[in-house]
């Protein structure tokens, strides 16, 4: 089996696994995750990176409003 074919098959299988596991990864993200793991990165660390980035993306997509300002320190100036 050619190397590209193997990679494509692995990606397909991982895509289906990802769908069953409900990971929320799209194909590009999954491909990068696979390559990172293949490159020797720790899988749990990779997962943590993905989770962090997704959380950050969700924060960035939120509109900034008054609620952020209300979180300012409540102590009075002396």
């Amino acid at each position, binding site marked *: *089996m050619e*190397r590209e074919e*193997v*990679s494509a*098959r*692995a990606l397909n*299988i*991982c*895509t*289906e*696994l*990802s*769908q*069953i*596991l*409900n*990971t*929320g*990864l799209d194909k*590009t*993200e999954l491909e*990068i*995750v*696979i*390559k*990172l*793991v*293949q*490159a*020797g*990165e*720790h*899988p*749990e*660390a*990779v*997962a*943590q*990176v*993905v*989770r*962090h*980035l*997704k959380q*950050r*993306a969700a924060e*960035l997509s939120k509109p900034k409003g008054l609620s952020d300002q209300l979180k300012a*320190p*409540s*102590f*009075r*100036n*002396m």
Partner: protein
Amino acid sequence: MAGLSDLGYELQVEQQKLLSRLVQHTLHIRPDNSEYVQGFDKARYILRHHPFAETNPRVVEEGFESLEQRLIEHSQVPKAKLLLRLRKQLLDIPLATDTIEVHHRLLSALWNLYQNPLTSSLPQHHEEAPAPAEEELSELSSWDEEPCMYRSDSGGSVLSEEASTYAYFEPETEDSFPGASQRELPEAGLPVDWHQEACLYTRLYWKSNLLQQRDQPVAQGTTERSLGIQVLHMLQGSTQPGHAFTFDERACTFRATDRVHVGHLSVPSLAALLQSFANAGSQAARVHAFVRRARSLSTLSDASPPPLHGLLTMQALADGVAEQLLAIAARLQAAEPMVHSMHWDDFDGTVMLNLQQALQGVMQHQALLDHVATIGTFSGNAKATVLLQLFSVSVRPLMNILDTWLGQGQLIDPTSEFFIVPGEELSPAYDSFWGEAFQMRETTSDGLPCCPSFLQAQAQRILDAGKAQMLLLHMPQAPDMIAGAQAAASMQAWSDWIDRQGHCSLWTDWLQALHTFLQEYGAMETSSTAVATDKHQQQRASRISRDYHAALGPPLDDIIPLMSSPDQPFALRQRLIDSSCSITHDLTGELGSQQGVQWEGLTPQQQSTAGQLLQQEPCYPEHADVFLCGEDQDRWLRDARTIDLPPVTLLTECCIAQPILHQVTAIEAELLKHLRGDWGLRQQLEALCNLFLLGAPAMQGFADALTAAGCLHEIPVHSIVSLLQEHLPCERGWHGVVTATVGTEKLPDAEDILVEVEELQTETAAVAEAAVPLLHVARLRLTCRLRWSLAAIISLDAQEQWNTVLSLLLQLRMAERALLHAVVNQHSSTIPAGARQGLALRLRMLHAVRAIHSFTQQRLLNDLLPATQKALAEATSLQQLTEVAMRLAALLPCLLQGNPPQQDNVAVIADDWERAWNSFARFLTWPSHFTSRIQAAKLAFDLGIVYSQI
């Protein structure tokens, strides 16, 4: 070496490229964005400095296997099969990499990213054409493919010879049952409404997920068979939610609801089936009967409507049982060659182990069938028992969630059906934990209330109790914190729950309470095996009864004859409960008339016109809430003549809500105990008072130590000043952490009290990290540290007041700084050298500090502290304690403000006042709410006198 180095560099570059691509793709930003840099750096940091251990392939495999098992338990067999197959396929792919265990590492990465796989959908092309079963799952899938030794048409089977003996399972003719659309259900002796009411009232079914209609293909075939398996799991007491059945009586449709805990079975059908199953004789006969039933039902057309209610339910149940039996057969068949091939003289441990495993599975399935078989013989009223069994099992998930929430302060709600949801991820150390960490969820996405109706009134208490439990678990543990003599003496009257040995789960309590209640109620015969063996359970059972008497009104002895015995003469049922919240005594019997009057269909008013003499007594309101529900009352009374089951409302109130509330009360009492005891709020308040009492006694030692150190080491005065200034705050953005000795016998020494002030960071996490080094301030002896800020315990409304108190406290320290500054700058030239210099400095500081604090001290000692201590000692509830704290918080600033400045008083001061005033004009820059001109003037005047004496 150079080559290896280059290779490593290339790998690193490649990884960074991948990481960069991941950041850009996930955040949807370009590299020139500032967020990109942060995200990339953070990602790189995580990859380089992660704390994870090496991937263990065995752990990964076990995780996936457990998930597959979980999917099967949730009737998602196709998904489990596909997961298994994909996993195996991935393991077979030869990936070109040098990374060891790369397949398992890939699986591990996906595993660590999964989010509730129970809700995921099958991949597109697998939904339409389910893949053939693998060997590992053949037990669940090969029913239709493999020849079954139990099939009724297998004439050679030993079991088939007994078929004619068990005629009950012959397929019923359609005439035996009413039509699905036109005819009514036969009277089965049990109200179907009871179970429906139980489900509705407890809201233990969950409608947020899909409702699979009968006419949808997905609800047929495998799914229905899986439903049968799920029923068995539920009957066995499985905690996992799954599918359930609902027969819509009006629409005459069969619905399968996902993610539920209650089997919405057609109760009469299931009860009859189970009872007959129990009476079917030997195990083999039951097997045979069930399989015949399954075969006969499977020949029905899927397109046709169900000929009778419950038929599909029975089919699914039969299929489920048949599958279990098939599994038994498969294991026995697998074990048989092992037994035959075994040479007993030559003992083979491996064969024995395999055999033991095979037989273990057999025994488990056998136990399952036995359970089904014996459920019908649990008591005399098999149908009621089935209902109660399903009902009690359905409560278990709720109890388990509540158990971990109230017992351990943890919210474990895998199916997101609890009425408390996690908010922000905050530890109890954070100020905002109490308000934001967990919140109440009112309704589901489709508008249904999340909280069961019988817990709605106490939902807030349950929420607070869980948070309090978390808080308690994060409190510093002192060896004598719980068993202290003072605590034991003072808390004894509050609750004996605190000192109970061990933790008894709500689920156990629920079962015991249910059993006890039913016995007292008369719905269940007293069974010797059901007597509680555990002492705690006995106490609990008696308490349930006692609580019922105390909280719900009429004693059970008066209720039981009314509810339970339809055959008793009417005169024995002397009480009716009418809709006007009063108990009506039927005095007919007492007046000699023993003629029973049928009350069915009669309202109390009609009965009174029928010649009875009625006397009304006021009824307990709580009792009325439980019992009376308008028209339902009459219906229930009518039903009560035919069944022994108590109303669902009474059952839930007495057996579920009451134990939960006991637990909540216990937690509240425990929190109150901690707040009152060591490390508690009282100690915090006293410590805070002591902080304000940094007057003469404490500050004398402080000043002595400071000046002695200065003289001994010949430290210049400006160094001492700078030393003090290190601990003084700047004037903006405070975050106060009070650290103090928890000794109340005497005032703490100055060294034992520290008001550590740190700049409030923008991120709360930074504040927590910054608070940690307090423990490492080696220069000051810290004997303890209060773990959470005061605002975390008192209400958020009082936080500002507490901050004001802390601000005032800090201003005291600023006063010290100003004083020293003034002394050094303006009088250092006049201070004599040597010992006299030290003595002079000491005297000046002592007097000045005394003057600063005398006012505060007097107020606190004479007014505030005694009143606070008295109020704390008298507080018997958390609410009262909180009120004391808030009162103190509101009082302190007022006291510290002192009298408003009055020009007349100023005018009385002697001429020296002007000189001293100018010298200490800095004090006037203090915030006006603390420093009155009177105090400043007095301080300046007194200090001026000291100067003149020197």
